Each structure stands twice: as C-alpha cells, then as structure tokens.
C-alpha cells in the first residue's frame, strides 16, 4: 500500500519533471537516441557480416599435398593419423590422377603440357574437412600447424591469405565497433545525466523541503531515477525504430550485392528487447551519476 503510493508519487513527479522541461527532454531523447542508433547500426552490420563469415568458415577445407612416390601403406597410415586429430572431421583422398583429371576438366587446352609431365604432373593430396567445433579461422590455423610436422606431407594449402584477411577484417570491425560503442554509450549516459542534473537543479528548493519533511535519500531519488530510466528506455526504443526504418529503406537494398546470396537479417527479437533494457540501464546510470551531488549540495 505504501509502495503503491510511493510509485504513484514517483510517476507523477517524473511526469511533472518531463513535462515542465519538455524541450530539454525532447533534445535529450533525440540526441541519445541518435547515439544509440549509431551503436545499433554498427551492431547490425556486425551481426550480418558475422553471419557471412560463419557460413564462409563452414566451407573451410585444407589441402594436404603429399610427397611424391609415397607408398600406399604410408598414405593409409597418414590418413589414420590425420583422422585421429579431434579438430579433423573428415578426410578425402585425391590421387595424382584424379587431380590431373580435375585440372584438365577446367583447362582442357593444357592437355599437351600435362601429358609431357607424365603421371606425376600433380601430387596426390588429402582434402581435410574440419570438425564442426573447429570450423573457424583460428581453428584451421591451429590444425595446419599440427599437421605441418607430419612426415609425408609436402605442403598445406588452406587459402591463408583470404582467411587472414577475413580474420583481420572481423577483428578490426569488432575493435571499431567497440570503440564507437563505448564512446557513444558514454555520450548517451552523459546526455541523460546532464538532463537529469538540469531538472535536479530546478528542484533544489523542493528537494530541500522533502528532506525537511523527513524523506529519505531513496524517496527523493526515486523520481529522478525513474526519469533517467524512462528517458533511456525511450531513447533505446526510438533508436530501434530509426534502425528499422533505415534497415527497410536503405541497408536492405544496398547490402544484398555484398552479401553473396546470404540474406541480410535485422537484429533478433531478444537483442531488440536487450537494446531497450540497455537504454533503461544507461539512463539509470546517468541519473545515478547526476544524483551523486544531491546529498553533498542539499544536506
């Protein structure tokens, strides 16, 4: 009963604060929604590129070219050794002849050249598929390192270059996203904190009265915290709406070219809820920061 009355009080106070300083509140809402939008945009891009990377990673295989003149026994043993690694999912043998046939299918004009080299024109190889748990850019690197030392293997190929590029790109993207995210998150907090501080300064006299009436710190702070949470959550929601609009009207069309048939997705529903909750949390933190001075100033 007492709690209900307090909640009613908090709601009406917050409403009055927001209404009395509606200009300020709107500015705060818009600016912090825009910062959150930037973070969301980055997140959206990240989620989508991450999807592509993952599907590309699933196709990662490794070619092990074998020493010339390796005996059949040795080859079988090698296959068994490779299969024993936990990172390896499957191994397919490609004989020198298979390799040449595949090559000639692709480049039929080079038949003469191939024939002049004889049967050993191309070396035999194993195509190694990775276990599902290791189908990542890091995974293939670590397996390659293990197999390198095994005798009978002359060369390992697994598209180091584009895998490295992919790896660095995602790392870079994550880094930039992190920096941008942290900066703009701090900016949002600062914006909310400043807004609350303004209403707080305006309620200085009223806060003094509350304290004289025996209101506890928690009682006094409630409406301001609620205001912060409301502003934050509304900013988060606003950012999501803006994000959806941009997504529908812009990214969705532009992006398709880049995505190699991989369809672009919006943020998943739990993430959407998460953004709003995070917004509320940011607002809460902002309000807390600005409230730190109440006790000091108006004791």
């Amino acid at each position, binding site marked *: 009963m007492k709690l209900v009355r307090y909640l009613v009080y908090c709601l009406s106070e917050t409403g009055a604060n927001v209404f009395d300083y509606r200009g300020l509140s709107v500015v705060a809402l818009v600016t912090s929604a825009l910062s959150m939008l930037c973070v969301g945009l980055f997140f959206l891009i990240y989620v989508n590129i991450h999807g592509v990377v993952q599907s590309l990673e699933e196709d990662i295989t490794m070619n092990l070219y074998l020493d010339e003149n390796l005996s059949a026994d040795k080859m079988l043993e090698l296959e068994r050794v490779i299969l024993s690694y936990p990172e390896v999912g499957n191994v397919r043998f490609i004989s020198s002849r298979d390799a040449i046939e595949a090559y000639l299918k692709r480049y039929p004009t080079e038949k003469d050249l191939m024939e002049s080299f004889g049967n050993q024109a191309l070396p035999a190889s194993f195509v190694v598929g990775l276990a599902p748990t290791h189908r990542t850019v890091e995974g293939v690197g670590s397996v390659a390192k293990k197999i390198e030392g095994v005798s009978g293997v002359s060369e390992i190929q697994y598209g180091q270059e584009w895998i490295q590029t992919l790896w660095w790109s995602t790392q870079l993207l994550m880094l930039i996203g992190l920096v941008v995210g942290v900066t703009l998150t701090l900016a949002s907090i600062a914006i909310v904190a400043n807004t609350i501080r303004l209403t707080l300064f305006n309620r200085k006299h009223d806060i003094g*009265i*509350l304290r*004289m009436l*025996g209101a506890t*710190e928690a009682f006094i702070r409630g409406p301001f915290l609620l205001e912060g949470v409301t502003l934050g959550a509304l900013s988060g929601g606003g950012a999501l709406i803006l994000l959806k609009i941009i997504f529908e009207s812009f990214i969705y069309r532009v992006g398709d070219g880049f995505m190699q048939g991989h369809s672009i997705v919006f943020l998943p529903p739990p993430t959407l809820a998460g953004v709003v909750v995070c917004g509320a949390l940011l607002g809460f933190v902002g309000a807390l920061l600005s409230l730190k001075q109440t006790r000091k100033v108006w004791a």
Partner: protein
Amino acid sequence: MIKLFHVYKQYDTKLVLSDVTLLVEKGDICCIVGPNGAGKSTLLKLMFCQKKPDRGQILINNQNVTHMSQKAISAVRQRMGFVFEDYRLMLRKTVLQNVALALTIAGTPLKQGRQNIDRVLAALGLEHKKHDIASTLAAGEQQRVCIARAVVSDPLVLLADEPTGILDSAAAIEVFDLLRGMSMRGTTVVLATQNQDVADRFPQHRVMLNHGRVTEQ
C-alpha cells in the same frame, strides 16, 4: 518531549548560542522570545537536526539526536512538524499536494490522511484554496499552508518559527487556537517569535533569548 543540556553553537568566532539548557514537557507550549539575531531560529534548527551543536546534548522524545545518521534523522523528522522561514512551499504544486506530501512521507494511512487534511485546512480557513497552485496564493495564505502541512500528520513535536509574522489578527488567532488544540492532544510545541504580543498569549512557558543566552525562563 524536548531536552537541551548546555548547548553551544558557534559560527567562526561568533557564538550564536551559549549554554542553553531547556526542558519542554510533552504537550507543553514553549514560547521562545527574543529580538532579531538572538538565535531563536538557530535553536529551532538544532532541535530539528538541521544543524549540529558544537557542545551539549539534545534529546527529542528521549532520543539523543546530537550524533545521528542522516537516515535516523529522516525518521525523527517524520514525527515532527516545522514552520520555518526558508523551506516553504513547492510553488508549482497545489495546496492539497503540498499538504498531502507530508502525509505520504510520514506514511499516514490514506483515509485518516484525507480527514486530517480537510480538518486542518478548515481550521486555517483554506478550504476554498485547496486546489489553487501555491504560487498564486497571497503571502499570508502561503504561510497558513505551511502551518497546515506542519500539523497535518499529527506530529509529536511541532517547531514553529515566527508563524504569524505576516498573518492578520484573525488568522493569527486561528493559528494560536490550532496550536493550543494540538498541545492539548499531546503535541509538544516550540514557538519562536520576536513579537511580545504573540509571546503574551503563551504565558505558561516562556523563554527569553538574547545574544544566544537564556535570560529568563
């Protein structure tokens, strides 16, 4: 019940209260009289835990409030009423909201609270101003709202600093009657004033304060 033992209060080198010892029984009305700058407001602020004495002890309802946490002070204040020169009304709120806030904070049940509000506003001639915004009231009306807010939660202790300075004689008499009624119901009242006429109305317990010293009791 309020007890002060050898209380001193000093600002920089200026001694504002010196060796004040005072006992106000439960239900008593104590009138502190003295000229401007005598230290009346300072004395009331000490009782309200708004300032701390430099020396001496203060007991409110058998609780020593000299060294108390902010939280405990809040609890004590919820059982006290005050009419001070500063800390007046919330000017953006209505009379009703201002008065009801004291009840919300003190945690008085809603029903009893509503009855109290109506009774107190009637006693102070403010019924018809109930829904007016505080800032639109005349100064004397605002002062009466402050008094209403102080008494509405039936506090154990009521501290009133010059409550009738700007009230006309009719309103002042209403206020005095209200204070007497409250003391009859057991509230301990401390009243500070520079006005001899006001003091003369409360001859039972009169304390003369001058330059921070109690000269007559």
